[in-house]
């Protein structure tokens, strides 16, 4: 099995996602970066599940499905929030959202 390659792919995706979350200033791009992390998770789940034999493979895939579903819901909520920000501020630059600190 090419598990290691999948894991590396997952790790790379994860890292890119994390980088995006931390570095992008645009709210929407941050949301997309989070999706990248979740996809890294999905790859891991499926790949590692497959490593565990039949029962493990199913479990991994089911888990991945749950993640995909919930991620969708999550992104929906997230977009709503970002939209709200945009509506009130006419910007989605996250650096500007710092009314509260300290």
């Amino acid at each position, binding site marked *: 099995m090419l598990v290691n390659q999948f894991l590396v792919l997952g790790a790379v995706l994860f890292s890119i996602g*994390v980088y995006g*979350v*931390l*570095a992008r*200033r645009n709210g929407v791009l*941050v949301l997309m970066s989070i999706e990248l992390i979740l996809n890294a998770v999905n790859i891991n789940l499926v790949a590692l599940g497959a490593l565990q034999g039949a029962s493990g493979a199913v479990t991994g895939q089911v888990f991945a499905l749950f993640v995909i579903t919930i991620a969708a819901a999550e992104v929906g909520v997230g977009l709503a929030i970002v939209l709200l920000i945009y509506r009130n501020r006419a910007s989605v630059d*996250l*650096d500007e*959202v*710092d*009314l*509260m*600190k*300290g």
Partner: protein
Amino acid sequence: MLENAWVIPTLTFVSFWLILFFGKRLPGHGAEIGIGALGLAFVLSCVAVVQWVDRPATEVVPHGTSEEVHGEEEEEHGAAGGQRGEDRQVVATAVETGGHGEETPIRSAVERNVTWFTIGDVEVTAGTAVDGLTVVMLFTVTLISLLVHVFSTNYMHGDVRFTYFFAALSLFTTGMLLLVVSSSTLQALFGWELMGLCSFMLIGHWWEKAENSNAAMKAFLTTRTGDVGLLVGIVTLFFAAGQTFDIALINERALTGAIGHTALVVGAVGLFIGVIGKSAQFPLHTWLPDAMAGPTPVSALIHAATMVVAGVYLVARLYGVFWEAFDIGAGGVNPIAVVGGITVLIAAALAFVQDDIKKVLAYSTVSQLGYMVMALGVGAWTAGIFHLFTHAFFKGLLFLGAGSVSHAVHSFDMKADMGGLRKYMPTTFVTFLIGSVALAGLFPLAGFWSKDEILVGAAENGYPVFELVGIVGAFLTAAYMTRCVYLTFFGEYRGHAHPHESPRPITIPLMVLAVFSVGAGLLNAPGVEKFFEITENRVFLLAGVEHHSFEVFPAVVSTVVVLAAIAFAYLLFFERRLPRGLTRRNALARSGYTLLTNKYYLDHLYTGVIVGSVKGAIARAAYWFNQKVIDGVVNAVGIAARRSGDWTYRHIDQAVVDGAVNGAGFGAEGFGGILRTIQTGRVQQYAALLFGAATVLALGLIIFV
């Protein structure tokens, strides 16, 4: 009365409360309660004296013990144990069986104790122990106090705090009486401190003026400093004597060698420090002249019968301890005698340069207390006590006389406001003169006998130096009293008031005291020796203290010295001859030549002492030393305490200790402020922190676990 001696202090104690609460509403403003109580106490004391004299001498104590006899007993007594009655019995039997030499029956002390409180297996008792010394003291104290009370009714008449004054007098007397009848050191401490309190109250009676309250504080604090020693002494003896405060037991065990020598010395030194403070011995004597700020009757009470003699009494009472600790029987030199001797001389010298009549008397008291202490220090126990007894009368007389004078002239300044008063106040003059002569120690007045005994004691017990000190002291005493009498009663009146003889409440006490000043000494005159017989007690015998009867030779010497002193003072002050030139001095030297053998020595003495006293070199130097150095040290200690308090508070307490606390608080807040900067408000920095921390934690755990 001997069993119920507690009644006497109780009387005055009750009187104190009665005066305090009801005094103001009574016609006499409380004085009648005080006088009544004291009168009753005096009567009871007389009863006690009579009973004591009638008491058959039954107890047998070997005269003079030797340690070998009791060597085997030591361990037994060294062990802790509270049952003193039994112990006493053991000792007594041991003494009887092992005793040798002549056996003199004496009157056994009457003890009565009740349990005061119990801690662990130590039962602390309170009670009375009455023996000859006690009854003598009871008699003296109640008599003097009664007279002072009577005197005060007139003297203090119209005072703002008349009632309160009488209450304090009652309490004061209570303190002394309590001390006198105490059977334990702890209880004695009560009386001791009670007097300290009352002296504070009475010296500071006119506390509106700062110097009066300062004097009161000084008196209290100085004696309290001495009390540190007393505390240490009592504590040390408590443990050394096998956990007991009982005075008789402590004496017994000290004398039988049951107490280790080190502990004994520590205890004795401690107690003696207390005595130095209380009895105004060198170098803690400076409070006493300041204490003249109080009303004169108080001075009389303090100086004659209470407070200052408490220290002397304590030494006499715990004589066994001092005897063993300082090896008084061996002669030579010991701390008690030295302190007493120094005090005799320096105080007498100081009395020369005082212009305030009360201060002369105050230094005189210090000096006389020095005599008493010295007497005890040289082993002349009876003499010391006898001097205490006689001194009480003539010193009381002198103070009351001074009070009478000041009552007439509204001043205490002999130089400015007195002079020639013998014409205006004959009774006061005569009685004051009697007191002075008694103090100077001329035959046959009281002071003569007691002083002579001290000299004899010093000589016979191997303390020749102190005999000399005594003689020099006698000379000085006579001289300054002559000066005092001269300045007050002779010459021309220099004041502006209209002097008059004092009324009866003042003169009657003077007369009574004058009678005692004349007669008290005869109690121990050759052939009578009643005083010795009365006061003889167990310790006295156990220790082997010698009683020294009257002897002619020292009596003659001291009489001559006293007369000489009076003569010099007479020449000096009355005739004002001496200062005028060498011829007169030479004439005097010539007249002295007929009396004494060594011309050069005498000449030298004269030149030194007299010129010194005239020009004030020695006396003034001593006074300067006294005021600036000794008193300065005393005051400086006080100031230093304040300063160091200030310093400690400001630099240690507030800066370091409290500063650390507050600093920790500020530090926490400051740290919180720094940490706050993490919270930038930027969500991505939050995320970075989150992920960064996760990574660090994971890496850390991988590496270190």
